[in-house]
């Protein structure tokens, strides 16, 4: 039984089909979840992809967090389900409180959080990704973090854009495979 991955679509999301392609490329099943949906359709993992949810109006992710689907995503996470937020999706997860901190404006966009949270993230080994050449000035070169339980992950780089050598890199595959493995575990536990 292959793992089913739900990919959340807000008005303005624009990386959902790339994520669907990458998931299917790696042998998973993908399904789009509309922002107005009140459930995640029983998927085994959720990806909140990149783009400009709700036009980034007011503040990136600020409006998207109130979408009905985000309640379902929060329930999925609370029950141990894996959630991956990429770029704009990472920002939605911080606005929704599924991950700590916030993303500030920059030449790119950079992760910030208060010193206590930062120390906590370091102490608990929750910084899962750092830039080798920091392109955006994020604090401590942070590129990705996890929730305390480790099942909610947010990162600024796009793994789906590095999922095949034809795209110039397949460095993102290991991350997406990890997502699919977690989804497969959840699917197996469900049976």
């Amino acid at each position, binding site marked *: 039984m292959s793992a089913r991955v739900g990919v959340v679509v807000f008005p303005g999301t624009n990386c959902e089909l790339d994520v669907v392609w990458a998931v299917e490329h790696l042998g998973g099943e993908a399904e789009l979840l509309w922002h107005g949906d009140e459930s995640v359709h029983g998927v085994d993992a959720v990806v909140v992809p990149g783009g400009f949810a709700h036009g980034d109006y*007011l*503040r990136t992710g*600020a409006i998207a967090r*109130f979408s009905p689907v985000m309640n379902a995503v929060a329930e999925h996470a609370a029950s141990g389900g894996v959630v991956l937020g990429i770029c704009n999706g990472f920002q939605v997860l*911080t*606005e929704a409180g599924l991950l700590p*901190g*916030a993303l*500030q*404006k*920059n*030449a790119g966009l*950079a992760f*910030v*959080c*208060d010193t206590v949270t930062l120390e906590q993230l370091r102490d608990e080994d929750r910084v899962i990704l750092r830039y080798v050449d920091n392109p955006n*000035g994020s604090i401590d070169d942070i590129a990705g973090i996890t929730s305390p339980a480790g099942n909610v992950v947010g990162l600024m780089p796009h793994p789906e854009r590095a999922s095949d050598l034809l795209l110039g890199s397949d460095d993102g595959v290991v991350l997406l495979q990890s997502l699919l493995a977690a989804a497969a575990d959840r699917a197996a536990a469900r049976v």
Partner: protein
Amino acid sequence: MRFAVRVDVTHLPGVLDPQGATVERSLPALGYDNVADVSIAKTIRLVLDAPSPDAARKQVDDMCERLLANPVIERYTVEIEPRDGGSVSDTP
């Protein structure tokens, strides 16, 4: 009572303001080389119907905490003034 509300949302000290920085770098090109500390902030204006100034203030603070500002990177100030006219619900 009806209130005119103005919310100013600014960056917390230390949070990068790339728009302000870019404007600051651009002004000398026009000859204004005596400018420093440019920052760009958001102003949100709204009209609110509430039973009292305190109630209005409480509700606006709530809006700021939940949506209008992100307390991790922003701070806000609120100005509330009584406004003449009917209630908000009366406006077309």
